């Protein structure tokens, strides 16, 4: 592992794998919160139990040990927003999460990684699964803070593009000859 990766992990506040979460009830409503208080999300439509299962589900679908739970919580928050708008989605999330918790007769969050995969496979063709899976793809990987962990730099126009910022800085292979790849203007 090189230095940049270490730095990146530091930035992302350590590994979130198996970090604890708790449901807290406040005067203003329910929230899902990291046990260490690192992050919290208000829930508008989903129950704390459903949200916790969805949080575990989103990580089990796209497990990145380098990402802490807060990035997966953004996905759950997006699902919560949809559930707030649509009773159908709210019911789908509630029932889907309950199916995951029922798959092995214990909460999904307590299953081993292998059993989580089996539980997910059993629901793979359901609209619930498809919706959550697509949501993770569309939200988790669309978060600029997550991009940094993957080494993607995103928008470049305001920085003048990459022409002076490493578009051709790869040094572990020989440079192609001038006729194949002329020098920049």
């Amino acid at each position, binding site marked *: 592992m090189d230095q940049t990766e270490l730095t990146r992990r530091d930035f992302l506040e350590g590994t979130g794998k198996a970090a604890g979460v708790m449901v807290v009830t406040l005067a203003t409503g329910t929230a899902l919160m990291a046990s260490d208080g690192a992050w919290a999300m208000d829930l508008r439509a989903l129950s704390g139990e459903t949200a916790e299962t969805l949080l575990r589900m989103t990580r089990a679908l796209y497990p990145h040990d380098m990402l802490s739970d807060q990035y997966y919580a953004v996905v759950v928050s997006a699902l919560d927003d949809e559930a707030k708008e649509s009773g159908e989605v709210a019911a789908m999330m509630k029932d889907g999460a309950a199916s995951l918790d029922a798959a092995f007769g214990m909460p999904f969050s307590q299953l081993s990684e292998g059993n989580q995969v089996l539980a997910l496979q059993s629901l793979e063709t359901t609209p619930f699964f498809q919706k959550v899976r697509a949501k993770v793809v569309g939200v988790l*990987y*669309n978060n600029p803070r*997550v991009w940094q962990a993957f080494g*993607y730099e995103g928008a470049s126009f305001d920085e003048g593009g*990459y022409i002076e910022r490493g*578009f*051709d800085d790869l040094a572990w292979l020989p440079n192609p000859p001038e006729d194949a790849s002329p020098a920049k*203007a």
Partner: protein
Amino acid sequence: MANYELNDDSVVVVIGSGAGGGTLANELCQKGISVVLLEAGARVENDAFINDEWNSFLQLAWLDKRTTSGNWRVAKDFPNLPAWICKTVGGTTTHWAGASLRFQEHEFKARTTYGEIQGASLLDWPLTLAELEPYYAKAEDKMGVTRTNGIPGLPGNNNFKVLYNGATRIGYQKVNTGHMAINSRPRHDRNSCLQLGFCFQGCKSGAKWSTLYTEIPAAEATGRLDLRPQSMVLQIQHDDSGKVTGVLYADQDGKQQLQKARVVCVACNSIESPRLLLNSASAKYPDGLANGSGQVGRNYMRHVTGSVYAIFDRPVRMYRGTTMAGIIQDENGHNPERGFAGGYELETLALGLPFMAAFLEPGAWGRQFASMMEGYENMAGMWIVGEDMPQSQNGVTLHVSEKDDHGLPIPNVHFDDHVNDVAMRNHAFKQGRAVYDAVGAHTVWETPPYPSTHNLGTNRMSEKPEDGVVNKWGQSHEIKNLFISDGSQFTTGAAENPTLTIVTLAIRQADYLAEQMGKNEI
């Protein structure tokens, strides 16, 4: 900017402002012809383009609902998005990557060269490379294609370095940064490429040729162009003699307007163009306009595509710089010993992290996929562009029940891979893998085709009226003042990215139109 009356029946109406329509409109205006250019999308100038994949997609892409059928994987992964093309002034020239290759001589004679191929509806084009060469030259000059007209090639980025080294190590010889309609030097009032890495999102700096900021303002400067954005054409109308007389469209307020016309040129891309002809069916033309042959909407081609992404031990950062940064051309010939007819090009391609997640292996989840994604920074990528076989049943039909906001049937796009397509893709995947293995890839992934950006053939050119929709000028065999001006007129797809040929045909069509109008033939 002109402002023609709706009942002015002296104008040429061009529908669609992309590579075909935008170019044709300008060429006609330069010749003194009055043009009404109707574009379904809004006018978004390049300074408003967004360096963000999903937000740009929402800004530029054609998102009206479509359905799909057939055995192509797009129908499973993206059932309502068969094509990744644009609904905006400039059309898909905002999104294209800029690769500008001439077709090869034998590709205009596909039926003769490849012989009879079971299940394929191959034809020779009714024209030759020699006939097109002067127009190719004009198109390359207009578009500022690198490695033509004394314009240097673009500098290769990191993704190209990987491609180049891998390709040459396995013996490929025709490998370079390509013929690109992207300025490597300032030219025609546009600056040189800043290596933004967002070619697909509309070139915000304007270094890549797009009709949006070249042809269209040039046409406006003549005072003869009446561009009407957010104008969705619903129907082409005709008189008792069968000649087309005008178009019915929904304007920016959703109000229906009827624009009269002397000539109508259809350039709405290969899904909407046949859809419009089919939706224009009348008592005289019960199967749709220009469809006496029954060929409208058939023979849909999308190129044999696919991508190869490879992960290395060290960083590549392929997203920096031009999306299509270089090409391998050694496989583009017709060499049946490989087990298939026709050839293919291999071109670098890069996606940002958001689209990589959506397209690398659509539907995939779990630790293996997550691990591939974690290799993103060390990833290189290439895209396959090969000639696919035209097949009669592949195509665009009107949906039997679903309608759009205007009450018109939406299009269904049906595509089955031909065995030749499957064999070519298989070969290309193996070669792509070999390229990356040669420079030490530790993981190589074969990514299935994306929604189609190259949509071709659904109103094809043919020598005989019974085999196609238009003649060698893109003029309807049936209706003399109705023209097809986009990639739907392609008889076959060749191995090359289609835009240069679309522009070339549009320049040539403008000459023909002006001549025919001058002679009062139309």
